């Protein structure tokens, strides 16, 4: 199972890299979102995917799935959400001010 999930995460990362290397800002942001999905998936599968009960003590199960990676992923999701929304608004403002979303045109001032 872990092997399969790792491969899926790898495909997500590859696609994310491809998108990040493109020209449009929106696609770059899509790429970062994919990258964070890939990272979260990887975190989960690295923690081990042994089947057990959800980490709730009320379940009274013999074994639980590992709670620590879940806590880490939860933190990571929130942070990446904050960063992504900031990026999105930044892209929106950049488009408003500069009238382009082409990264090749966003090169700063040559005279500086």
């Amino acid at each position: 199972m872990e092997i399969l999930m790792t491969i899926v995460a790898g495909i997500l990362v590859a696609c994310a890299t491809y998108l990040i290397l493109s020209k449009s800002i929106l696609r770059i942001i899509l790429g970062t979102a994919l990258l964070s999905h890939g990272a979260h998936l990887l975190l989960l599968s690295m923690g081990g995917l042994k089947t057990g009960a959800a980490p709730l003590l009320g379940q009274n199960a013999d074994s639980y799935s590992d709670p620590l990676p879940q806590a880490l992923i939860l933190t990571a999701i929130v942070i990446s959400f904050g960063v992504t929304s900031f990026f999105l608004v930044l892209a929106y403002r950049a488009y408003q001010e500069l009238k382009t979303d082409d990264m090749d045109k966003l090169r700063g001032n040559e005279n500086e």
Partner: protein
Amino acid sequence: MSLIHLVILSPLILAIFVPFLHKYFRQIHTGWFVLILPILLFIYFIGFIRSSMNGETYISTMNWIPSLGINFTVYLDGLGLLFALLITGIGALVVLYSIYYLSKEKEALNTFYVYLLMFMGAMLGVVLSDNLIVLYSFWELTSFSSFLLISYWYQREKSRYGAQKSMLITVFGGLAMLAGFVLLYIMTGTFSIREIIANVDIVTADALFIPALILILLGAFTKSAQFPFHIWLPDAMEAPTPVSAYLHSATMVKAGIYLVARMSPIFAGAPEWFWLVSVFGLITLFWGSFSAVKQTDLKGILAFSTISQLGLIMSLLGIGSAAVYYDYLDDNIYTVATMAAVFHLINHATFKGSLFMVVGIVDHETGTRDIRKLGGLMNIMPISFTLALIGSFAMAGLPPFNGFLSKEMFFTGMLHATQIDAWNMDTLGILFPVFAWLASIFTFVYSMILVFKTFTGKYQPEKLDVKPHEAPIGMLISPIILVSLVVIFGFFPNLLSPSLIGPAVSSILPDYFLIEDINIYFWHGWTPELFMTIGVVAFGTFLYLTVAKWGKIYEWFPQRLALNRFYDGGIVALERGSNKFTNSYMTGFMRDYLIIIFGFMALLLGALIVRLDVFTFNIADAADVGLYEVILAIVMVISTLTVLISKSRLTAIISLGVVGYSLALFFVLFRAPDLALTQLVVETISVALYLLVFYHLPEFKVQITRLRFRLTNFIISVAVGLIVIIIGISANSHRLFESISSYFEAATYTEAGGKNMVNVILVDFRGFDTLFEGAVLVIAAFGIYMMIKLRLADKKGGVEGEGK
């Protein structure tokens, strides 16, 4: 801190007060205040001669950084004393000369004397330090103050060029020297020169011996303007003449000589030392004297002459090192070379200093230093003429002046060099006296040009800007004193031999040397050296008279070998090359940088994986593959690929949403209810945000095109994905220890009183993470608010209204 430390630092201390003296005593030339110090120091150092003659040395330590073995240790022996006397003695004369040379009204005297005093203190520190790091610090301070002095007239382009050039070359050498010192420290564990000499056996046997030797020689050669590093010295002639006289003839350029002499007890005896020092010295000697003849600027002649004479001293030090190789057998015939080196060092300081001062006088009184414009000044400036004549004759090596004696000893040393029967000297050795003899002929020629082209021949008043006249007496005092020394040392060389030369030579060649051995004879009989000198005079006279005919060879010969062109070209090429290199990867395109970052990451990790052979595949520990998971994985991969190949951005955003929701479903399947909840909410908001941004892109500008398919992007992203997969699989196959989650399982209720393990970890066990994650959200929210609300001024200076 003893008196001698104060003595070394006193010029630096006085330098602090010079600007105040300059400011509050405007009526008095600042130089008068400065003059007192070198005179006092000179007298102070003279007091050491008696003890130094008895072979006593003086040591005094002041702690600086004792934990690193770096202490300001002063070590005063014959060699250090000789240099200290030169520095303070000529320093006093140069300050006196500069008082008359530099005008009180026109020049910035405060900076001049600050720099000069800085230099004097630094130079004293170089020659009297026993600690290598302290020596290096003072060494760099001499480079630095020399830089400031060369660019004294900083408004002139050539001054700045010369200063920069000398700085680059001497600092390059200084750094090499520092590396050599550090190697010596690695070998012996001490920075003290005396202790290193005491442990010389360790150094000689070490593998780092040769690198240290070469690095230290690099420092000495650059500072002493040895071939091919001599090119900075002629350009340093843009400095005021007192500076040229002091720094670039008598003291600073001899710092390299000092270093070679000081390091001789460590390195002498090694064939590499002998060859490098003597051969580079000889090449410098010949090339300097050969190039001096073609100069038309008086200071240019003197600059090349200095180069050549420094080469002479250097080659003598090299040959003297053979004495160590032979363990002082063979009647000490090689020590005569070291003696000659020290003797010539003194002589050169006297006659070169006086010549520079005379040239400065000529420049000052006629307005030019160009020998093509000068001539016939003999009757107008008789005193200067006399001084120049004696100085030049001493430089050419004519009797009865001191240069004659040291030149005879130089020939003796060179002839003895042919008797060395090791290191191929039996075949190559004959070149030594031949080169020395040829160089002496050219030395004779340029010395004659210097004095006779300036003072005899046709007087050309129409070419001179000012009407020439004899210099004021104050300006003449210093050269007169120096020239008197030239004559006195010429007639009574044995004033010097026991007092200064003997102790200095015994510092260079310790253990074996007896001071009583030294005797310089004014007349030494009909020896081969005398016939060589007669030959020099005969051929030199002939060449001087016919210089107009054969001088043409300079028009084509030196230009081909111009090292300046190499230096200038090298600087330009370096600048252009680095510009080009930087521009080649700093393109300004974000994508290029990302390609470099991703590519480097993939390459580095891939190479490490292959090299360390870490890939392992082990599924014994893995969970079983379930049907739902496989279906969900397929859905996820397909929607991911849809993001990639979608033609419109809308499709891409929706596909991304599918990826996010299937991730949430994965969280459900892998029993992570909190994650699933969060992921669903976050994904929903994210998709809404994407759509919002998409909506705001004006319709007509959006180019809904297929993503550009680029092979490099494809290769790099596939490589990155593969690396992630490989590392993930390998990491999964190595479970080195159990998770700590059993603790959380046990403690969640008992310790924290909760039943949801994930939530307890988030707010209780690892509450700090959550605190700062909350902070991240707050910062992001504030950032977004600011970005939307805040409008910075546009280019016209107007501010757009808020909330537009």
